[in-house]
């Protein structure tokens, strides 16, 4: 099927609005994701308790909770289309890149909503030293973009396979590893008052690389 | 010293067996390709 659909920012915006609207109608995905994130957080807090100034464990746990929430919920962006058979229709009106970018922005928005709930809850439950707001939010933002970008690409690939959630997580993890390590290291440094420049640079470069390669690869995603 | 020689002997033996196995694979490949 030729991908000669619209390639413009308008198409991306339209796809984003459509995603938001269909998600908002049922809020099924969002509810499930929030429930999952809160559950994971509860398990962690319940088993470990307040961590005071164990900044290394705190940083790791925060990102593990976010990673798990992303892996559990972001795989569905494309699966929904495949199962509802709406993908063919979409591809008639928009290019693969526009579709993917629209979904990427939606995934990012989804993650941000998730984080607005999860991160404050984490800080309240787990304790921890005061934040260096700038570096902390910067790392969170970069990490979220990286998570969204990677999950969109992998999600699109997985939606055409027989595997689903487990395969999505297993396949995403090696790609996300550098990002996870940099984010954890940076978050810990931020709590200890150390500079986070190196981690931010790595995260930024990583995110840019994933976005760039995604843009090149989206066109190859669907060719039947 | 002799312990070393034993290990070396084992290594050479393993390599030799692997080599023979691969040669046999080659022969079988040639057969498959001819058919």
């Amino acid at each position, binding site marked *: 099927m030729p991908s000669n659909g619209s390639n413009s920012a308008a198409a991306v915006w339209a796809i984003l609005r459509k995603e938001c609207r269909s998600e908002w109608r049922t809020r099924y995905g969002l509810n499930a994701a929030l429930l999952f994130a809160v559950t994971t957080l509860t398990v962690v807090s319940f088993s470990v308790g307040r961590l005071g100034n164990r900044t*290394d464990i705190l940083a790791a746990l925060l990102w593990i909770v976010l990673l798990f929430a992303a892996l559990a919920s972001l795989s569905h962006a494309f699966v929904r289309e495949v199962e509802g058979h709406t993908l063919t229709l979409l591809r008639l009106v928009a290019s693969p890149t526009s579709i993917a970018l629209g979904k990427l922005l939606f995934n990012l928005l989804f993650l941000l909503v998730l984080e607005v709930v999860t991160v404050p809850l984490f800080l309240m439950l787990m304790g921890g030293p005061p934040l260096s707001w700038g570096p902390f939010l910067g790392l969170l933002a970069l990490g979220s973009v990286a998570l969204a970008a*990677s999950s969109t*690409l*992998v999600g699109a*690939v997985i939606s*055409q*396979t*027989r*595997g689903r959630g487990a*395969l999505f997580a*297993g*396949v995403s*993890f*090696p*790609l*996300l*590893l*550098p*990002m996870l*390590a*940099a984010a954890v*290291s940076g978050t*810990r440094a931020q709590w200890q008052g150390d500079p986070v420049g*190196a*981690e931010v640079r*790595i995260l930024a*470069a*990583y995110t840019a*690389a*994933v976005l*760039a*390669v*995604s843009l*090149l*690869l989206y066109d*190859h*995603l669907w*060719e*039947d | 010293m002799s*312990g*070393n*020689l034993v*290990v*070396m002997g084992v*290594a*050479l033996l393993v*390599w*030799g067996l692997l*080599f023979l196995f*691969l*040669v046999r*694979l*080659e022969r079988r*490949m040639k057969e*498959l*390709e001819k*058919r």
Partner: protein
Amino acid sequence: MIWRVLLLVWIAAAIVAGFAWAPLVPVLQETTRVFYFHFPSALVTVIALAWSMLHSVLYLARRDLRHDDHAAVAAELGLLFCIGAAVSGSMWAKAMWGAYWNWDPRETSIFFLLLIYGAYLALRTSVEGVERRARLSAIYSVAAFVTVPFLIFVVPRIYDSLHPDPLFNQRGKADIDPRIMLVAFAMVVGFTGLFAWLLSLRLRLARVERRRLEARTTGSDL
């Protein structure tokens, strides 16, 4: 045929040289010799990965399924060598430092190569359709190619944070006896030759299988 005999002799000679000619590293004593297996394995792992990823890119550019064969076969072989490197490294670590696994930078890197291989091969087995499988796994391979180099920058940080006092000194580059490096280099060449041989064998098998499949679906006699 002559190449195979040459390979046989080459590796055998390297093994003998490693045990009878090259000296021991003072710190490592007898365990020095694991190096002659561990180091080439790790290097071939990376070579195989590079080969696989190169052919993934070529497949996406040219849509020739032979590139997909190369990508898939190189990944399978790379996984084998990676397991060899990880296991030999782990046993060496146990002998030297008392722990099978330490998440030091080298161990971490090998482990994540293992994950990449595993993810790639798992992805391949879950896709139906030859062209689709080739295309999707090639996409993943290219994405991995972009993200894996970041591990090089990030891995030392993980280690430094977990082990502020390193358990071992990264082997000083200054003092290794050139004879050891020579044997190690010879083994690298030998292992690469072995990889090339295994690759060609597996590729021929894949080609035969595909020809059989085509013949069956087009209904011709074989």
